[in-house]
């Protein structure tokens, strides 16, 4: 054992390694990405790790490994689970041999996601047991429990941390490498009555799964991480899971005398199957219970169900009773306020120090970085379509930020890869619109290729704009099939999107340098006017991958202060100081796009 200061996701990775994980795969997505990256950094010789092309591929790879007796971990964010749901729903019916943990990071807020979906609800839907850690330390221990549990019951298991657990740091005691469990898979054993899903197998296994999950409501009641604290306080109880448990524990203690809890506290670490026997023990003699949880009212509904089932008169409060906000993340303060209302307490501290209203604070929405090639690509298409009726379909990645003014080049954004066929649909209804679908390179490989096939097959008229910056930028620069390297560090053949598109039957595929507006604008005009499905590939590496060698300076003698550069581009390196356009040399990367829009061409590059 030794102590390390670890991010929750790093702790999860080390926990998986300590549990002897053999295969780790996934697709990047905030807040889950660091799990796989840490495995890659810290892995032993027994572990294979890859960034898969998407979550579905990863889930299937992990399933195959687990069929063969390997311990497998597959990682994704919550919306990634939607992509992987097809294999997972069936996998639960088939089961696994080696332990398989499906790590899905939920994102209350949401802070960097499209939805506030709850993997605990997905657990009940898919019948897959779910572990819900409340701290990074607990996540480290819990993933080891989850592997054992998965193997014992022959089922995949969810580990479902939320953002504050994933990205929280704590000093944690972790095992040394010589203390790791070593799992030696015995390989795939053919047995078509076990591994081939047919209706008869599904019927038989469905009954077994329901019986198992019912029994687990008792078994998991004695799992040590499901527990009751502060037992001897009558009448009022609080139930919580995940980071909300950590908040509830601390805020309750702050309202008790000498650190004792002023209410009975139940911690739910396995929201599915729910520890029913423990809940009955918790509910005994309580008049009222406040449930503190984020996203769906999972614990609240279970407790309400258990009260109804057992004829208890205990009142259950939470999201459904409007005592807790229906959406958004909980905070120490929101939990504290809810506890004050529930317990009739009034902690001085929660009345934030009274200060007068501050001056108006600046709004700081996230923006494309200075020098980002996406800005140039968007601007080129915008200029090409000036005065024309056009639709600009967006997608998931840094380039969603192209929606901000002044670019205003993202008319829709739904989910990974959706932009291609949304553009196709818009054009069907609005045939006089020129439609574009912008997609990043990683998103293209993950889930836009089938969309392009659909568009070509069904004779759509649209232009695919592939923003190829040679990386998965938004989630922290992970490699993908187009980059020519894998997470194991191997150099592999690059999969060339030009060949992919030509192979599909896209008739015109043009590669352009977005930083060369004079060439790019007329080419976009020409290509987009052609019939059928066309593609423009803007190739320029993500600016964060390179150290800039230059920065730009405004020649103030020439500048007519028209501010066109600022108004057209919205680059964060450009600002106004003492009434003049100025460039921050620290932020500027010297891309020179501003000089291309400058009517006086009076912005020049300076070597660093």
């Amino acid at each position: 054992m030794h102590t390390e200061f670890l991010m929750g996701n790093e702790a999860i990775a080390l926990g998986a390694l300590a549990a002897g994980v053999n295969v780790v795969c996934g697709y990047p997505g905030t807040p889950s990405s660091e799990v796989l990256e840490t495995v890659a950094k810290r892995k032993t010789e027994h572990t294979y790790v890859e960034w898969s092309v998407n979550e579905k591929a990863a889930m299937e790879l992990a399933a195959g490994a687990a069929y063969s007796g390997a311990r497998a971990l597959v990682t994704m964010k919550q919306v990634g689970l939607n992509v992987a749901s097809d294999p997972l729903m069936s996998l639960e019916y088939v089961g696994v041999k080696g332990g398989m943990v499906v790590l899905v990071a939920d994102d209350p807020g949401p802070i960097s996601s499209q939805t506030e979906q709850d993997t605990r609800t997905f657990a009940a839907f898919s019948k897959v047991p779910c572990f819900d850690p409340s701290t990074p330390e607990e996540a480290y221990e819990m993933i080891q429990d989850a592997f054992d549990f998965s193997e014992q019951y022959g089922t995949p298991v969810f580990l479902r941390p939320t953002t504050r657990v994933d990205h929280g740091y704590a000093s944690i005691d972790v095992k040394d490498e010589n203390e790791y469990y070593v799992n030696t898979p015995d390989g795939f054993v053919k047995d078509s009555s076990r591994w081939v899903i047919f209706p008869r197998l599904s019927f038989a296994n469905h009954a077994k799964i329901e019986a198992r999950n019912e029994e687990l409501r008792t078994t998991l009641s004695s799992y040590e991480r499901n527990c009751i604290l502060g037992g001897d306080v009558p009448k009022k109880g609080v139930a919580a899971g995940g980071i909300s448990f950590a908040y509830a524990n601390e805020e309750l203690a702050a309202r008790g005398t000498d650190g004792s809890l002023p209410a009975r506290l139940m911690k739910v670490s396995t929201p599915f199957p729910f520890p029913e026997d423990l809940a009955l023990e918790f509910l005994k003699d309580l008049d009222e219970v406040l449930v503190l949880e984020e996203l769906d009212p999972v614990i609240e509904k279970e407790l309400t169900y258990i009260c109804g089932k057992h004829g208890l008169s205990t009142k259950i409060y939470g999201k459904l009773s409007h005592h807790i906000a229906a959406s958004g993340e909980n905070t120490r303060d929101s939990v504290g306020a809810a506890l004050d209302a529930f317990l009739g307490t009034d902690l001085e501290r929660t009345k934030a120090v009274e200060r007068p209203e501050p001056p108006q604070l600046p709004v700081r929405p996230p923006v494309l970085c200075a020098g980002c090639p996406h800005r140039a690509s968007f601007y080129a298409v915008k200029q090409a379509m000036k005065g024309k009726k056009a639709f600009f379909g967006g997608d998931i990645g840094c380039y969603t930020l192209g929606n901000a003014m002044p670019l205003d080049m993202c008319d829709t954004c739904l989910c990974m890869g959706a932009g291609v066929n949304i553009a196709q649909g818009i054009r069907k209804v609005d045939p006089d619109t020129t439609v574009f679908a912008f997609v990043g390179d990683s998103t293209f490989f993950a889930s836009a290729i089938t969309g392009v096939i659909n568009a070509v097959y069904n004779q759509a008229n649209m232009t695919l704009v592939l923003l190829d910056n040679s990386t998965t930028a938004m989630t922290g620069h992970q490699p993908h099939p187009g980059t020519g390297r894998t997470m194991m560090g191997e150099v592999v053949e690059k999969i060339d999107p030009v060949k992919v598109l030509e192979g599909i039957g896209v008739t015109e595929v043009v590669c352009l340098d977005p930083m060369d507006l004079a060439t790019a604008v007329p080419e976009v005009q020409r290509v987009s006017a052609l019939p059928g499905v066309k593609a423009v590939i803007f190739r320029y590496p993500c600016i964060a991958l390179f150290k800039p060698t230059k920065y730009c300076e405004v020649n103030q003698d020439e500048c007519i202060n028209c501010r066109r550069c600022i108004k057209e581009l919205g680059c964060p390196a450009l600002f106004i100081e003492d009434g003049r356009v100025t460039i921050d040399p620290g932020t500027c990367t010297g891309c020179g796009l501003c000089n291309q829009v400058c009517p006086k061409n009076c912005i020049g590059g300076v070597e660093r």
Partner: protein
Amino acid sequence: MTNIVLCGIGGQGTVLASKLLAAAGMKKGCNVQSAETIGMAQRGGSVFSHLRMGAAGEEVSSPMIALGTADILIGFEPGETVRLLPYLKPDGQVITASRSVMPVTAALTGGSYDGADMLRYLEDNVQNLSVVDTETALAELGNPKVTNVLLLGYAAESGALGLTSEDLKDALKERLPEKLWDVNFRALDYAKKA
């Protein structure tokens, strides 16, 4: 328990500062937990770090700090310091950089954002305030990239961290290559002569 809030704009180095504090705290046997903004907001948005250090044996149950309970607030930009001021306890310490950063939105609309208003507000409403003239300091230090360590030096000097600049130097040595030690040590010690 020492509760520390750091705040700034994505890309300013709050994360590294938070890691240095955590490393220094752990070296002294503290239980440390922290949480920070990761993801989209890092692209020029408002970012923060919460850091909690419990003395040996003192449990830290979550990394998040409640409003009105931070012992010290370290702001890398005056407007961001004001934004997170509600976390500060009544007699808490504030260390803020003086230099304001104009958001892109304000540059576009010609909107006014004046960091001087923010500094004035802080002066009127914070008892223990230390405004660091970052521009002068960085020019003297000859390196524009040590704002975070410079501010940590002032934070250590204030006494509110429970850590000294010597503690931070030990942590820096572990995290940074030797060629960067000198300028960072000078940045840490800058507060002493200021």
